[in-house]
């Protein structure tokens, strides 16, 4: 058995020079310290993205876009297709876990200040992927064409519509018409399975190349003590195998969620029905949605909702550009102010998500 494997390995190595790649990976080291656990969340996010691609392609074999067919086709997948329930549930659960792990990854990078020079582009591409992931979530949520998704999309695109100047054209672009209807569904389907995956793959490619080229960032304190000998482990096989172990745990978690909490389909959307009470967006938009509720209708000369949207947009932009204004971290100095901002953001998101969920 072993000799057969060696034979196959030699055959492959002769053709694609595998040994060079292994040597490259073997030379790459990952720092080992008390915060090393956070390194794994990037890999887990990648694993969940791969699951999304695979389950998404499988769903595409049966999913039919269109007002008349979307709901029915998902119902068919859930009830008639062999393991259709599993694939759909895993796709839906993975979508949520993907956003969660991407968020954890983002905050861990933020708190470790791993975005500092020379990794500004890695941070920017990561942030772009996070926004694309939110786009995946928003567009994918409508595809089953159920009641909750229909009204959540209506509310979501309505919010986009209040942005000054570009709001109305943006809303019509998203909806494909003045209202949420079959045209919106077709458009969201196109975004979800073609436009967003295309862009995401390119950005992901750049992100991974940058990570491979630059290696893992070391926390600021450890970096300073590096002369005393920083503990490391080889990326291959040590870190990669640990990554795989983590992926297996996540895979098992997904299976448990899919079996015990299968993703519900709900009622088919009826554009003529009134919105059900307590309509809410997906959990990752909830903190923003809840904040908009608390902002007064009018703030001096500006509309309250517009103010909220501009505030979140500005905060998002500042967050994305942190490598360029956090000069202290770039100089290798500790910057507690960044920690306070991060902590505030985490607490704010958790608090308003819980409030939004409960109310």
């Amino acid at each position, binding site marked *: 058995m072993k000799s057969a494997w060696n034979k196959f390995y030699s055959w492959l190595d002769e053709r694609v020079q595998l040994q060079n790649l292994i040597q490259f990976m073997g030379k790459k080291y990952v720092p080992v310290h008390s915060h090393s656990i956070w390194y794994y969340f990037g890999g887990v996010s990648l694993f969940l993205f791969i699951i999304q691609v695979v389950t998404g392609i499988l769903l595409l074999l049966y999913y039919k876009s269109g007002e008349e067919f979307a709901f029915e086709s998902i119902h068919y997948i859930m*009830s008639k297709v062999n393991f259709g329930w599993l694939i759909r549930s895993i796709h839906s659960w993975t979508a949520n876990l993907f956003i969660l792990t991407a968020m954890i990854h983002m905050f861990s990078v933020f708190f470790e200040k791993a975005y500092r020079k020379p990794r500004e582009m890695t941070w920017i591409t990561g942030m772009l992927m996070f926004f694309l992931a939110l786009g995946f979530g928003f567009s994918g949520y409508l595809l089953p064409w159920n009641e909750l998704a229909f009204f959540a999309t209506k509310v979501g695109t309505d919010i986009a519509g209040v942005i000054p100047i570009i709001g109305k054209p943006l809303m019509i672009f998203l909806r494909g018409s003045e209202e949420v209807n079959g045209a919106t569904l077709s458009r969201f389907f196109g975004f979800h399975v073609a436009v967003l995956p295309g862009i995401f793959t390119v950005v992901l490619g750049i992100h991974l190349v940058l990570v491979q080229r630059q290696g893992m960032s070391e926390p600021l304190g450890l970096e300073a003590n590096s002369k005393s000998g920083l503990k490391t482990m080889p990326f291959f096989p*040590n870190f990669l*195998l640990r990554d795989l*172990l983590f992926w*297996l*745990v996540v895979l098992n978690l997904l*299976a448990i969620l899919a*079996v015990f909490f299968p993703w519900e389909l709900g009622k088919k959307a009826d554009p003529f029905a009134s919105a059900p009470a307590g309509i809410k967006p997906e959990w990752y938009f909830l903190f923003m949605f809840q904040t908009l509720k608390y902002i007064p209708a009018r703030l001096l000369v500006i509309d309250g909702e517009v103010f909220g949207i501009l505030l979140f947009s500005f905060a998002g932009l500042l967050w994305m550009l942190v490598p360029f204004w956090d000069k202290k971290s770039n100089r290798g100095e500790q910057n507690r102010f960044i920690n306070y901002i991060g902590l505030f953001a985490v607490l704010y998101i958790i608090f308003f998500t819980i409030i939004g969920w409960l109310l």
Partner: protein
Amino acid sequence: MKRVMLFLLSFLLPVLSNGFSYAGDKCLTCHKGLSDKPSSLYSHDIHSSKGISCAGCHGGNQNSDDMEQAMSKEAGFIGVPKGDDISKVCANCHANLDKMKELGSTLPTNQWQLLQTSVHGKSSLAGSEHIVQCITCHSVHNIVSVKNPASPVYPLNAVKTCTKCHADPAYMRTYNPSIPVDQFEKYKTSVHGMRNSKGDPKTAECASCHGGHDIRSANDVKSSVYAVNIPSTCSHCHSNAEYMKEYNIPTDQFEKFSKSVHGITLFQKRDVAAPACNDCHGNHGATPPGVESISKVCGTCHALNAELFSSSPHKKVFDEKKLPECETCHSNHEIIAATEKLLGATPGAVCSRCHSENQNPKGYVIAKAMRHLTDSLESSENYAGALVTDAEQKGMEISEAKFKLRDIHQARLQTRTMVHSFNNEKFNEAAVKGLSTASFVAGEAQHAIDEYYFRRWGLGIATLIISIVGIALYLTIRKIEIKQQNKNNGIKEN
């Protein structure tokens, strides 16, 4: 002293009674001299006998000989009241309990209030008054007690009084184009109408069912003829054994009806589609349905059952034996919900009343077979329903099977209808359809339950495999790292 008192009283009474005193009524004296109609009629009016003068309604000073002074505004003269003022004049006393007591009357004092909220209290075409005033029904100047046969609202006259407007299509059209105007014609053909025309004041006339002053539209839930209220309205008389004694008919219809499937639907479920008394007996033309017409009456709602029965072999036999068709098996007022228990050869079943193993054995065998099938269908439905519930509680997607459960129930209802054909083939067809649907639903539900366990077992096995792979991976990592450590130590040693 006694003489002085009498002298004083003869002056004071007319003043104290404020126009109620008829004695020495100068209005009547003058008007009688003119021989006008109101004054000649008024001497027979009940108000006249109570000592109420013309001024009691028209105002003015009845003690004055001077016409101008008697009919002056200062004396409160209002002339001939118009519109709602007419009824208001009546209400001055009839809505005042103290005045009515003073006049020795025990009449209720809420007529004016009731009239205003009644269907007749709506605005007339002119828009300034109610459609009906007191005098519209009670007449004027010759008003007599309702118990007086001369009264236009006396039971024998009430129908004609109502008919003045309600049989006039041109008049009724102006208020409600869709309201029928043939009530009187129908009434004449009813048992009530025939007895009334023969002079029986005890039989129902318009006011007996619709009320007097508080008449409301039949669609109004407060109306005495609103579908849910009709049985109790009829029962006012028909459940009164003393009142109905001379007519020699039962008085337990309401009691029986209340227990019937129709009564339960009407009273408890408040479903106005359920039949009340008038739906079988007619309303204005109410008569007991004859033996021949029962299936037609029931057939107005239970059309298919009636049609199947009419073309069944039972029709001829029932006709020959003069058996009331539906009533023979289902009873009349106390119709219980038609379940499978009515069918078959068991003691409670109606078939066994005529069919036994020895007498009419063919029907006995068929009834037994039909019952067997309906019982199977019932248990199949229950079994399938239980499986669907179980699958649903396990969180499985079972909406299609759940929807098909209705088809099984529909098939059961269909078999109940098909019984009326008394045709085994037709009955079997409906029953088999239901049984096959039940079998399909049970299969789907069982499949969903199996799938539920399959998923859990699958998860268990997957978890086991993942755990084994995970442990193997962990051991591999340890092995590699120990090897690396040894190698590093070796290098250091060297």
